[in-house]
């Protein structure tokens, strides 16, 4: 049993040391690639920006590869702000219109071909867009969210660069395919696997670094998330126990069950709002309405969040709250449920699936547990990556809504997965990760 202090003695120093080691490996010229495993909120974007800076300072013209348009936009804005002296290019598909924040920057250029971006020192685009580029080659590429890029996508862009810095979070959702075939299982070049794993399987000498600190997760969450989803690569919180706090602006009258849950979350950083045991379809109104009601109640009572960025406290806004679910239809129904709360701030609350919440950050996150109300667990619902994303978006508190019964479901879960030759078992194991999370949440249980 690992003893966890929750924080390292000097997280900033540890993080800095890790970053320097990454940059040193890049500069040494000895490696075709450097991989950086980055747990949630570990400062990936900072690392990407820093690495880009080092490369340009060294005379390189690096490209940046991200997985979604939103990620590309965020990176362009970050890079442009950090380096007012250079022009950052955004390579885009037809029909793309830059968001206002990007438009407002003077040192960015948007173009559909590389020729349009000839004057740019750094060019950023999605992997899909890079896949349409022929012939051009660059010395370096920085690949962001690299563990979410599938191996076949990597194959389409790898000829564009000589060396790569691959940064990503191996604990979040893996890429997948809905085609059901087993023909590539066990092959090191299995195209359905993530590109980083395939690259490492073929190149034993590539250095793999870890960022050791999560700046996002509070000290109440880092140990549990680390143990559940990063069993071999421990990380710790960057802030102390007293760095973050949530307080109500008004006293609670009328909805004691919700208030009790919110109080638990405010004081400890976690809460399990447990509904009555029932088997229900995933669209169950009571469950989804409860999640919406918690958000509504939080907004209604008003909260003030204190943290290292806002030491005097800052009022919580709708945009600081997210509700995370497993399925898109649940997201729609939660949005409808939010509208029903009548709270004027409700439309500003983010509601999305784990897939779409990846990479994002909020102050308070409400999660509808993927296993809630189910009779059986399926591989999809047990998947560690899904729960990891849902449980690691928050800076202050995470509230999980679930019906009683998940413990029994886990306990009686059959072990029937097919077994394949020559395939390393994938860790963390979804069952074990779920069990660790449930054990933790049970300590913060509020029976509704």
């Amino acid at each position, binding site marked *: 049993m690992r003893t966890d202090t929750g924080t390292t003695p000097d997280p900033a120093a540890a993080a800095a040391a890790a970053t320097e080691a990454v940059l040193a490996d890049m500069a040494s010229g000895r490696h075709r690639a450097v991989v950086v495993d980055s747990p949630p909120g570990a400062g990936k974007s900072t690392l990407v920006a820093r690495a880009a800076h080092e490369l340009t300072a060294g005379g390189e013209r690096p490209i940046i590869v991200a997985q979604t348009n939103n990620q590309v936009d965020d990176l362009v804005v970050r890079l442009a702000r950090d380096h007012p002296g250079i022009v950052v290019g955004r390579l885009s598909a037809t029909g793309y219109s830059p968001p206002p924040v990007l438009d407002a920057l003077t040192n960015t250029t948007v173009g559909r071909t590389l020729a349009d971006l000839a004057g740019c020192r750094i060019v950023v685009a999605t992997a899909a867009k890079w896949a349409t580029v022929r012939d051009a080659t660059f010395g370096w590429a920085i690949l962001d969210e690299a563990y979410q890029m599938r191996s076949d996508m990597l*194959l*389409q862009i790898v000829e564009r660069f000589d060396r790569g810095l691959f940064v990503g979070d191996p604990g979040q959702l893996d890429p997948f395919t*809905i085609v059901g075939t087993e023909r590539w299982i066990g092959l090191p*070049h299995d*195209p359905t696997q993530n590109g980083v794993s*395939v690259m490492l399987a*073929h*190149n034993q000498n590539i250095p793999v670094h870890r960022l050791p600190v999560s700046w996002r997760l509070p000290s109440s969450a880092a140990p549990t998330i680390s143990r559940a989803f990063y069993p071999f690569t421990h990380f710790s919180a960057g802030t102390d126990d007293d760095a973050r706090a949530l307080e109500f602006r008004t006293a609670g009258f009328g909805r004691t069950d919700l208030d009790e849950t919110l109080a638990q979350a405010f004081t400890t950083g976690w809460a399990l709002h447990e509904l009555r045991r029932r088997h229900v379809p995933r669209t169950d109104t009571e469950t989804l309405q409860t999640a919406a009601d918690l958000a509504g109640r939080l907004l209604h009572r008003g909260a003030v969040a204190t943290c290292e960025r806002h030491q005097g406290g800052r009022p919580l806004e709708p945009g600081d709250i997210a509700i995370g679910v497993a399925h898109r239809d649940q997201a729609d129904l939660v949005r409808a449920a939010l509208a029903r709360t009548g709270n004027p701030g409700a439309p500003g609350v983010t509601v999305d699936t784990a897939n779409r919440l990846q990479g994002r950050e909020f102050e308070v996150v409400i999660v509808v547990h993927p296993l809630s109300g189910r009779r059986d667990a399926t591989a999809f619902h047990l998947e560690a990556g899904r729960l990891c994303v849902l449980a690691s978006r928050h800076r202050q508190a995470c509230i999980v809504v679930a019906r009683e019964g998940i413990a029994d479901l886990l306990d009686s879960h059959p072990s029937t997965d097919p077994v394949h030759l020559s395939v390393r078992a994938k860790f963390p194991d979804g069952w074990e990760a779920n069990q660790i999370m449930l054990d933790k949440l049970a300590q913060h249980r509020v029976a509704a």
Partner: protein
Amino acid sequence: MSTLSALAYVQAMESMQAVPLTEFRHRRLSARPLVIIPLAMAGEAGAPLAAMVGSAKRNGTLLVVAQPRNRDQRFAFAADLGQVVMDYIDSFRQDRRGEGERSRYTDAPQILVPNPGGIKALADLGRMCRFRSTSGPYAVPDAVPKFGMWLTFLVERAEQAGTSMLLPVTGMLAEHWATGQSTIEDQNLASLMAWIAPPPGLNVEQAMAEAENPDVCPPAGPSTSPEFDNRDLAPAIRRFDAARTLDDPHALAATERELRELIAGQIQPTWRMVWEAISLLRSVPEAPRTAKRFERDCKAFTDYSDYRDSGGLPQRKRDAAIGAARRLGWLEHALAEFESDMAFDDRSVLADRRSAGEAFAGMVVEAEPSRTVTTAKDRRVPRPLVTVRTDDPVRLAADTRLISPSMPAGHKAMIVSVVRDGDTTRVTVEVTGGMGRGRIPKQGTVPEPGQRVAYLPDPGWRPAPQFPASDATPWTHSAADEGDTDSAVLDDAAAEEWGNED
């Protein structure tokens, strides 16, 4: 699985009869399919026991391997079966139309087996045969390697959604009918048929019970029932072996005949059942877009046939990095297209998508048929707006491209907005195609108020992904010391590492 399709299974179970899941049959059914019922020997791969093959119910040929562990007999069997199958395939390499690039055979073969196990048996046979050499110390009859390569081609194509050159009959039946049993039981052809068309004189329950009794309904294969193996087959094979050892021609003929009759008794009921299933399937109307996918089958058949004619190599044992990535791309593309085709053709499938929010149908409540827009190239083009009111839980985002089975071919649209209004939803779409070339849309190409219309997402056309050349696998997907493994493939496969005979 949606609530809608789950309800069909429940309905079937409650009413004790199969219930149609779809309006159409989404697989082409050839006028002249070749049915193969393979039987394999228990305990070993690639140990064929027998096969019944033919392109008409009355024309079944029974091939039996009297000594399944004998290597020569296996390949003799493969050659015999191969001859029948190659004759059948060659009969489709006669009629060719079109010029140059577009030249292709007008028809393609179709092989039907009872169940997915049958496809696996053919896959194993294909693997066993395709690397063999027709000369040298372990020579096999000429037809064998060619047969192996064709089988492998068909099996690999069968992995692609929407194709029809090699199909399991259980799969075809289960695509159209819901039974009141589980998918595991649906793999048993006799159980499936019990629900859809019980034998005369039996009700569904009785037929189900018989279907699971191997003495009444011999299994459809490739496995034989253990009781049959132990009680009948093993002794018969022993008697045949004894007769061979004694070198007695009378006894040999007699025991061989006995063996054949025994196996015929096991295969014939399945043979009849498969043809009955084919007949049932023929009575289900074929979905319109099946024809388009059949065209692709013809092209693939033509391409492979040409490759074979020019002396092409046998298929690799395992995909290399680039081949694997390419294959993944076309498997995904085929699946997306097949699912879209099914929803487009079939109201039941569309209803399923609608209930999941992935398609919608409703009444047009507003329209701006004469709206135009100026394109980037400074042309005025028609872009009517149409608002549909629907009860469906629409879950499609703005900018989703759409196609419509309710409108003339070529109709295209794009979602502008989705607005929920209590229990109904108003979806506004911009019509972007299928209106003819003029500035004014042709009559009937724009939905009108009062008209019922359905829309589903357009799977779209995306250019095929570009990968590095097959002989230039990048460093990320190849280990430093990886040589060309293709030569190794041929070397050790043609040489027979047979080991001990028992």
